[in-house]
């Protein structure tokens, strides 16, 4: 798998992401400064977490309008795989590659804690190393992760099976308290219609080593590495 990590000014989880990708793929991903626009030869483009442009104005708004996004859009249009985590998810949404919006957390506070996620479908390059309905732990760290979309959009997402992950209790129930940021229908991650673009708020890349406190996040990266192996 040839993976590239796009780094916008203010992105800060590119090192975490590189650890997870290198561990799964056996080789270091390419780091792409946002002014580069050549994504030739990449199987997977990742936009990691952080605070692109300080999260000023709206999270992800300024990064979404930068030139490299056209290249990412073209990559996605070719069927290339795109993963956006946290700020990366916000950027994909602001760029219109995924629908909806990410609003301030319902608590109006930054939330840095572990959450539990349920895998909603397993026939994607991102999730096929999990069992359907599997529940895994993941750190999360964001101030604006409250997923919102209007009802028609939500119904379409549900109808087409494009909800990838939901916030749940450790036992797998999608309760209100399990969804600390207030996301509508407990949505934590969504897919594009061709299921080659995934955006999610939590950070599975921060749980890929016993030293980090566990390996719950590994299936995402192992799945990608297997699916995109040359």
């Amino acid at each position, binding site marked *: 798998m040839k993976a590239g990590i796009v780094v916008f*000014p203010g992105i800060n989880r590119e090192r975490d992401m590189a650890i*997870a990708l290198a561990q799964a793929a056996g080789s270091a991903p390419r780091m792409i400064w946002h002014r580069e626009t050549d994504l030739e030869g990449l199987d997977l483009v990742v936009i990691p977490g952080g*605070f692109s442009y300080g999260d*000023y104005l709206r999270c992800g708004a300024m990064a979404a309008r930068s030139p490299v996004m056209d290249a990412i859009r073209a990559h996605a249009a070719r069927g290339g795989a795109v993963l956006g985590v946290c700020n990366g998810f916000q950027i994909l949404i602001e760029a219109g590659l995924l629908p909806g919006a990410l609003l301030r957390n319902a608590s109006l506070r*930054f939330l*840095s804690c572990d959450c539990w996620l349920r895998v909603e479908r397993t026939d994607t390059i991102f999730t096929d190393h999990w069992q359907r309905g599997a529940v895994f732990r993941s750190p999360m760290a964001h*101030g604006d992760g409250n997923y919102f979309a209007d009802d028609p959009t939500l119904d379409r997402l549900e109808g087409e099976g494009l909800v990838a992950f939901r916030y749940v209790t450790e036992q797998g129930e999608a309760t209100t308290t399990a969804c600390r940021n207030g996301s509508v229908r407990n949505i934590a991650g969504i897919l594009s219609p061709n299921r080659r673009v995934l955006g999610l708020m939590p*950070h599975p890349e921060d749980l890929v080593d016993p030293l980090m406190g566990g390996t719950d996040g590994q299936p995402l990266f192992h799945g990608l590495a297997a699916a995109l192996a040359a």
Partner: protein
Amino acid sequence: MARDVNASLAREFGLSAEEYGRVLSILGRTPSFTELGIFSVMWSEHCSYKSSRVWLKELPTKAPWVIHGPGENAGVVAVGDGLAAIFKMESHNHPSYIEPYQGAATGVGGILRDVFTMGARPIANLNALRFGDPALPRTRNTIDGVVRGIGDYGNCVGVPTVGGEVNFHPAYNGNPLVNAMTVGVAPANRIFLSAAAGIGNPVVYVGSKTGRDGIHGATMASAEFAEDSEEKRPTVQVGDPFEEKLLIEACLELMATDAIVSIQDMGAAGLTSSSVEMAGKGGVGIAIDLDRVPQREADMTAYEMMLSESQERMLMVLRPDREALARSIFEKYELDFAVIGTLTATGRIVVRHRGRVEADIPLEPLADQAPLYHRPYSETPAPAPLGAVTDPLGVRASLLRLIGCPDLCSRRWVWDQYDATVGGQTVRRPGSADAAVVKLEDSRRALALTVDCTPRYCKADPEAGGAQAVAEAWRNITATGATPLAITDCMNFGNPEKPEIMGQFAAAIRGMAAACTALDFPVVSGNVSFYNETEGRPILPAPCIGGLGVLEEATQAARIAPPAGSELLLVGAVAGHLGQSLWLREVAGSEDGPPPPVNLAAERRNGDFVRRMILTGKAGACHDVADGGVLVAVAEMALAGSVGIELDAPEIAMPAHAFWFGEDQGCYVLAVENAAAVLAEAAAVSVPARRLGRVRGEDLKLAGGVPISLGELRAAHEAFLPSLMGG
């Protein structure tokens, strides 16, 4: 703006008549307005340490692993594998009182710069916070703003906030304490210093533009608060963590080349202190052309530019042939880059603006003749011994009250707002071990980090309190299995012109020095914050200690949570000391007595034993005994592991509440598999140790008492902050 310069204006600027006289004799003429500003900030308490220097000299600062001790932007110690840890703690008390959010945020920004200016990538932030009476609305506002400010800044720059402490006391009503610590890592042979060199070399300004922010912040931090200070405040400094993040990356990229001769952040007193210190330390002169300084506002005067405390700015001296390379790196990050001056052979700082010389000061006397005070001091009277105190509540109810009180309740509400995992190296997050543990990239090693101080002990007996703060930091690091290496400190005190405050300071230093020496735990950096008083009421003195240790194998880091089935041992001698304990305050309603004495020899012996048990795999978990005593430590272990614990009836010659809630020092609770073997090893090295109980069941059970379910315990522990702060 420009006013007549005379003794009375000097007085307004915080210079005494005697100090102003010295300015006149150094210059041989009346200073210009700008020069007066430069002298006043350089000779302020904050920048010159004029009241504290004579005492700080007593702190031990050396050890074979110390690379740079006090005197640089931050302390540097070797941590193995060719790496160095670079760390420092700093106060932002006064700004955080005026504007809690920005005050705390810019505190984090400032301490980050002190660390990355030396070539380190910052890998962890910690913070020590003291707030007033939680019942006051103002306190809630302060907590809210400070925690958001620290979180937002650290989260945005992508440095994990991994630890800290929070206390409450009415003595902080008008003077919260906000102390921020940053730890960074660099190759030990690539440390950048601030001493300028190379006559003719360009002096380069990078980062944010200069505005009229926080002019005279350093002198503000050197004066007591009066009622009207909320009106008189200077323009508040606003932090821009996005700019800081770019500055970190740009500086580190430049530091990987050979372009930098010396580099220094612009902290307190901004361009003045950075240029004066760089040139002064290097024994060269410096000429600055203010017309070239990137400016945010129109018509700024020389005085304003020299004293501005705009954030996210750095000053560096470059090799002339690398200027273009350096410029290209800063342009990549869209940061301002301006050559604003050159190094000269004059030994003077010469500041030009719009064709006029606005300041021309010889550097040597500015530094050498800076005021130095041996302020009068009076020793704190020894507290009367505490007589017998009866237990009004019983052990079970006392525990539930203590574990939920403001000083002992869960800090989850705070740390849930701090990104603790960014970077992917955090091995022990807040709440999981006595010190935070952060792995070093591309190494098997990890650092253990903690901040500690018990101000109520320091108030009652500053010498014992100073020693205790150092010992507790050492103990917390030890409890993870790490070897303690060095500390940074942040000395928060009242008005040093009062003999009783100076007495507290001197005694705290004595206690710290004794503990540092006994524990081989030298001071490598620090900061002094005086004048923490409002309307004459001083704070509880707080010499906060930031400790750093190293684990050779990150995988060996101990946690608090005890493995199921293990036995609990208590290491250390329990005398049932209740003076100044939280039990005494929260249950018996008194703040009396002497604090617990620290036996440094026993501290070391017990700690070295505990560390050995952890590193040899004989102890599966460890928690030190601190605020609240043994039973609180045990309850915290049960909560951390979500496990039940069954305690035996202790064989003791003291009341039960003294045993369970006394705050004796040098004690640890260990979870072990083979209790007999560990007890035998303890006996062999004369370390007191006894059985406490075992991990079993679903409740916390005291022999003969009504069990406390984990649910009840957790509810009591978790409630306070969320209900105070509204979720």
